[in-house]
Every structure is written in structure tokens, then in C-alpha cells.
């Protein structure tokens, strides 16, 4: 009976939530934080290099991967914030797509990197992706909430994917790393193809 009442209470809470929550978020403008969190997930341009970078980090030791987990969101924050200083850098879209190909190729090759190179690559990916996300901000956006949201989702995705990949690689069977490397080759192929398309028709992208 008590559980039934709890369920009923939750149902009422769920039914009553949307209107009040929406009004609340609009008033406090906390929606910009969630907007920043969700923005990188609504296009493939961000999530592909993030996934590849997380898998690449996990291919190294867990100790090395931790550096990426720490550095990535910080650089993402800096990259997103940099749009406030430089709102339109023309080379960034090309750099973003080229990085997809580069990180994908690194995963496909299964290369082992020194920790400085790995962390540096993570910082570059984060700066470029952060910048591209920051360009979505409009004058009415609460910039710092949006930037914090982008950095937060970067931290969440990087931590979860690195952890999942490390756990996956600990399982039995030599096919696990091969499967991830095949995935990396797919990501690299996407990057190469998209770079060609971007160069061929920059005006439409």
C-alpha cells in the first residue's frame, strides 16, 4: 500500500512537473546550462572525436587515461569560452573534421602514445570542439551557464566512455581491441569523407 502511494505520488509529480519546471528554468535561465550540456550531443561532429579520443585514451593505461579525463573538460571550457573573444575563426570547422580523421586513425592503428602527446591531443580536440559549440551561443544566452554545461557533458562522456572501454578491454577474447580499432577506422573514414565534402561545398555546411 505504501509503495502504491509512493508510485501515485511520483505519478502526480511527473504529471505536474513540466509546466512548473519550464517556468522555473526560464526564470532562472538554468536552461542554458542544460542547453550547453545537450548541444554537443545533437550533432555527430562532437561525439565522434570524443568517442575516438576516449577509446584512444583507454588503449593506453588507465593512469594515462586519467590525464585526458581531467584535461579534456578544462580545455573544453576554455575552447567554448574563447568564442567570446574570437567569434569567428574560419579554419576551425576544417580543423574539427580533420581531428576526427586523425583521432580515428590513431584508434584504428592502436598506437600507444606518451602521456604528454595523449593529453595534448585531448586538449586540442577539446579546444576545437569547445569553440564550435561556443559558436551556438546567441546574445540572450547566459554564456557561463552554457559553457559550464558543455564542459560538464564533456567530462561525463569522457569519464564514462573511458571507464566502459577499460572494462570492455578487460574481458576475455582478443577480438575486443580489434572491434574497437575497426570502429576507429569507421570514424576515420567519416572524417576523411566529411573533410572532402566540407572542402567541396563549404558554403552549405
Amino acid at each position: 500500500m505504501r509503495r502504491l502511494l509512493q508510485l501515485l505520488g511520483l505519478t502526480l509529480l511527473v504529471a505536474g512537473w513540466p509546466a512548473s519546471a519550464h517556468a522555473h528554468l526560464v526564470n532562472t535561465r538554468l536552461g542554458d546550462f542544460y542547453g550547453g550540456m545537450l548541444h554537443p550531443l545533437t550533432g555527430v561532429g562532437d561525439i565522434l572525436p570524443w568517442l575516438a579520443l576516449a577509446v584512444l585514451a583507454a588503449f593506453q593505461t588507465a593512469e594515462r587515461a586519467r590525464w585526458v579525463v581531467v584535461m579534456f573538460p578544462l580545455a573544453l571550457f576554455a575552447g567554448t569560452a574563447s568564442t567570446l573573444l574570437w567569434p569567428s575563426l574560419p579554419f576551425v570547422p576544417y580543423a574539427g573534421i580533420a581531428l576526427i580523421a586523425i583521432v580515428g586513425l590513431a584508434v584504428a592503428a592502436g598506437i600507444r602514445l606518451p602521456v604528454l602527446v595523449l593529453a595534448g591531443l585531448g586538449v586540442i580536440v577539446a579546444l576545437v570542439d569547445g569553440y564550435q559549440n561556443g559558436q551556438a551561443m546567441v546574445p540572450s544566452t547566459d554564456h557561463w551557464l552554457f559553457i559550464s554545461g558543455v564542459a560538464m557533458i564533456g567530462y561525463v562522456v569522457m569519464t564514462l566512455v573511458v571507464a566502459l572501454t577499460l572494462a570492455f578491454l578487460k574481458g576475455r577474447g582478443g577480438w575486443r581491441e580489434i572491434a574497437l580499432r575497426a570502429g576507429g577506422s569507421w570514424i576515420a573514414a567519416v572524417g576523411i569523407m566529411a573533410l572532402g565534402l566540407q572542402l567541396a561545398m563549404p558554403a552549405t555546411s
Partner: protein
Amino acid sequence: MKFDLEAKTVALALALTVGTAATAQAHTTTDVASGLVSGFLHPITGLDHLVAMVAVGLWGAQLGNPAIWVLPITFPLVMAVGGLLGVAGVELSYVEEIVALSGIALGAAVAIHLRPPLWIAAVLVGVFAIFHGYAHGRELPHAADPLAYGAGFVLATGLLHLCGIAIGLLVQWPFGERAVRACGAAIGCVGFYFLLGALGVKG
């Protein structure tokens, strides 16, 4: 305790949904979706391309480790380079003929259980991948979202390889071995049909 956790999860999910509905549209998600769909459908709608990609997976599975993963990794990567050539407008000759020939060659390799050294198989698949990618690159529509288009395209290609590998894993059984070789023969026939078309022989 578990109930509290579930309730909090639901509440957080709702808050995320409600709070982000408007701002998330900063990305034009319709472009992303249409790019993904058109890219995904592109390799599937051409039978000559489709059978060759399945044949790559079949041959890889038939050759076993490491070909089972080397060939399907090689094909999309090199195909993307071929796609670049096509997009850039580089002129290659006999593209349709070589695409059809790839179906014949790969199908025949599966049908007769050809076992060349790995590097020869990889080079052969790579050469064919250039022409497949080139053909796709020349036909590419003006995608609204190039990245989404590329992701859909490569995903479909990879899944076709996986289909071939899944069928190819039947080689563990005697009946499966015969079935896989029959698939190879059928792919060769499809390739031959397209070769006749490319040469202007069939009506």
C-alpha cells in the same frame, strides 16, 4: 532506497528534457537526420556496390584471422580516400566497369575459396575500394550536413561488411562452407550482370 533513486532519475530526466527543449535546437537536427538517412541509404541502394561490400565481409570471414578484420577496416578507409577523389573531381576511367569487376573478382574469390597472402587480399580490396568510393564521391548529393552524411554512409558500409562476416561465419560447418561459396558465386553473377551493363552489352 531503490525507489528514491528511480524517482530522482526520472525527475532528473524530466528536468533535462524540459530545460533543454528549446536551446537544443541550436543545431539544425533536421539536417543531421536527413544527412544520416541519405548517407545511410546511399551504399544500400546500389546493388553493384552492395554485393561487393558483402563479399568483402564474406571473404574476410572465409580467410579467418587476421583478414576477418583487416579487410573490413581497409575497405571503408580507402573508400573514403576514393570518395575524396570523386568529390574533388579527379578523373578516373572505367569506374563502373571496375566496380562491376570487383563483384566478379570478390565473388569468385569466395566461390573458389581463394587464399592469397593477406597483403595481396588487402591491396585487391583497397584498389576496388578506391573505385567504389570514387563512384559514390561523384554521385554525392549536396548534403546539408556533410558529417552526418559521412557517418551514415560509413555506418551502412560497415554494416554491410558485418553482414558478410556474419554469413561468412557459417564456414565453420560443412553445409555453411558450401552456402558461403554459393553466395560468392551469386555475387559474381551480379557483378557480371553489371559488367555487361557497363559495357553496353545488355539492353
